[in-house]
């Protein structure tokens, strides 16, 4: 039991933090948002730092690192509300190296690690909400060739990606495929999201696909859990910065002749926000440290973490805006951008109520175990 970061992990944190501070200021971020929510240039800079290959094995050109390193990186990106979806490379790197065949790995892992290929998870369907078993996408097989027909929504940077990881029903069972963006019958319609990032609806009409694994549910659950742990870490970074912005504002803004941080009603609100911030950080650690646990334990842990972090994101986001007063609801001032990011993250990979339901359903039947 140890919550200290190693020297290497601290160095990694410093490197990412320096990049965010130096190269990803609010003005650039604002510009990226106005330009549609994704910057290839910024993506290439992340790749130069080696971050796209964080979960790609060293033999395949990546850094072969683990959940704690992923957490450290995502926290720092969260601090700068970086729009480019690095978590997708963590998911793709881990899922392909864990479940794909040798040929697919050789073709894609080095390019994911190098940043040339942005591979993103495209699993959201209108009817499925957060239930993986509900999947209308269909895969058909001819010889050893697969083709997919599907409509997937809110796919992160879906129209900028080089390939999508797509779950689809193959012979009545969920399987996972990789579909190249340039494939015949594949199209993507991009749009901005509330957090200033980018997403797309991806439509596949009998599009040629590479099989990743026929055990699609196992792989998809793993993919989503990596997504949840990454999201929780990103959220901690967003929360830390939101708290810092709010504290600074409260110590500067004067009303009734004094700084508003002198009012006890507001101080107690900040204390409650600090509570949520530290609970969220604790549960983000918990999520990352459980990411390599056996699937049932891992799944239960992610639900607990996402629930707690979701509560914290909503509370701190709303209260940070409230404590700013009128300036908090403007686009010009930075805090509203953090609030929108927190709101977006709350709905990523299952919202708070969904995960409460997961915890409730899974609540281990240990009643009486200590008696």
């Amino acid at each position, binding site marked *: 039991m140890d919550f*200290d970061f190693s020297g290497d992990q601290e160095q990694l944190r410093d490197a990412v933090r320096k990049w965010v501070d130096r190269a990803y200021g609010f003005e650039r971020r604002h510009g990226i948002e106005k330009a549609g929510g994704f910057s290839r240039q910024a993506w290439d800079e992340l790749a130069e730092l080696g971050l796209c290959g964080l979960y790609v094995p060293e033999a395949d050109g990546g850094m072969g690192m683990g959940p704690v390193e992923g957490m450290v990186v995502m926290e720092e990106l969260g601090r700068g509300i970086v729009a480019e979806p690095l978590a997708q490379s963590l998911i793709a790197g881990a899922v392909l190296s864990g479940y794909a065949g040798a040929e697919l790995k050789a073709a894609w892992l080095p390019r994911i690690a190098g940043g040339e290929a942005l591979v993103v998870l495209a699993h959201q369907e209108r009817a499925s909400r957060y239930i993986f078993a509900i999947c209308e996408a269909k895969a058909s097989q001819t010889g050893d060739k697969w083709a997919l027909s599907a409509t997937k929504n809110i796919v992160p940077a879906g129209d900028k990606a080089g390939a999508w990881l797509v779950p689809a029903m193959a012979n009545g069972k969920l399987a996972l495929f990789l579909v190249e963006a340039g494939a015949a019958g594949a199209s993507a319609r991009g749009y901005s999201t509330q957090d200033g990032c980018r997403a797309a609806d991806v439509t596949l009409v009998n599009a040629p696909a590479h099989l990743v694994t026929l055990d699609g549910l196992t792989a998809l659950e793993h993919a989503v859990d990596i997504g949840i742990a990454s999201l929780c870490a990103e959220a901690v970074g967003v929360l830390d910065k939101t*708290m810092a912005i709010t504290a600074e504002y409260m*110590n500067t803004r004067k009303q009734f002749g004094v700084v508003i941080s002198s009012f*006890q009603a507001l101080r107690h609100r900040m204390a409650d926000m600090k509570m949520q911030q530290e609970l969220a950080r604790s549960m983000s*650690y918990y999520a990352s440290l459980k990411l390599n646990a056996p699937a049932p334990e891992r799944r239960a842990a992610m639900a*607990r973490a996402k629930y707690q972090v979701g509560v914290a994101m909503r509370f701190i986001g709303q209260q940070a805006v409230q404590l700013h007063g009128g300036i908090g609801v403007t686009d010009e001032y930075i805090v509203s951008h953090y609030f929108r990011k927190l709101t977006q993250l709350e709905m990523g990979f299952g919202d708070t109520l969904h995960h*409460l339901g997961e915890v409730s359903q899974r609540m281990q*039947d240990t009643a009486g175990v200590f008696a």
Partner: protein
Amino acid sequence: MDLAFTPEEQKFREDIRAWVHDNLPKDISHKVHNALHLTREDMQRWAKILGKKGWLGHGWPRQFGGPGWNAVQKHLFEEECALAGAPRVVPFGPVMVAPVIMAFGNEAQQKRHLPGIASGEVWWSQGYSEPGSGSDLASLKCKAERMGDKYIVNGQKTWTTLGQFGEWIFCLVRTSNEGKPQTGISFLLIDMKSKGVSVRPIIMLDGGHEVNEVWFDNVEVPAENLIGEENKGWTYAKHLLSHERTNIADVNRAKRELERLKRIAKTEGVYDDVRFRDEIAKLEVDVVALEMLVLRVLSAEKSGKNSLDIAGLLKIRGSEIQQRYTELMMLAAGPYALPRIYEAMEAGWQADQYPGSALHAAPLAGTYFNMRKTTIYGGSNEVQRNIVAQTVLG
């Protein structure tokens, strides 16, 4: 970073578990698991068993006869005791006054008092709060005047937990009215058998006698019972309060009580009601998050690398959780929590004599009422929020 305990720590846990299993009297753990009434004899029997093993002062360093455990070992010991249904160690002696005597007392005081605390022979009480001094403790008025080699103590203390059993009491007393209120306070050890000490019960909203008023009427206290220097008592008290706060999160008991809540919810048929079970699910996440918070503090203590300034958060969250599980237990039993039958809280009372044969429900409302204290004592949660806000806003 690693969530798992080391093999040495796991071995340590197993050893503690085996020892507690062999040594904790079953009649006592039965009462704890079912929130039945614990007598003085129950509490002291367990204290003496621990004392004989050298573990009543389980947080003590070796030089004072403690086991010299680190923060993690202490946590594991406390967790194993709590899960097994051991009564909470009455903290006033071994957890609260002993560290002050070790840090600020002289050798004679250490020799005189520590053995009786370590063995569980001597029951200590705490004399801090006064009727006019709750959150604003430094305004306390109970006066000690130096007359030759004695102090003459006059005044009143209140909320003295289990003071009806107390043999000694450590008190904050006013020895000076000069300067700031904090600078005129001294730390005095008082024999409760002294002439002029009287203890009067305060009956709480649950009908129980847990706390007391302690009155001092011209009580003569030998000057050798002063800890450290006169007028420095506030510093010593703060040292003690910092000990109290990490202890107060009580996450181990929360883990045990969460399982008891599930048992009760099942018995009452509300475990399958999604609305009710979701409330337990929220509490389960709260308990896991609190445990993670506690483990982060322990890890920081163990490595000495980071200091985590979150004691106030532990107190707030721990106390809120304690209140919540008692609340949900009571709600689970619903109307069967309402009969106020004190005898039903004694071991051996027969279920068929309780309305609806719902014997497990007998203590639930009382415990709920009793636990309202947790957000009030040890520095009220509002005072804690002031402290937490200070760390964020300066």
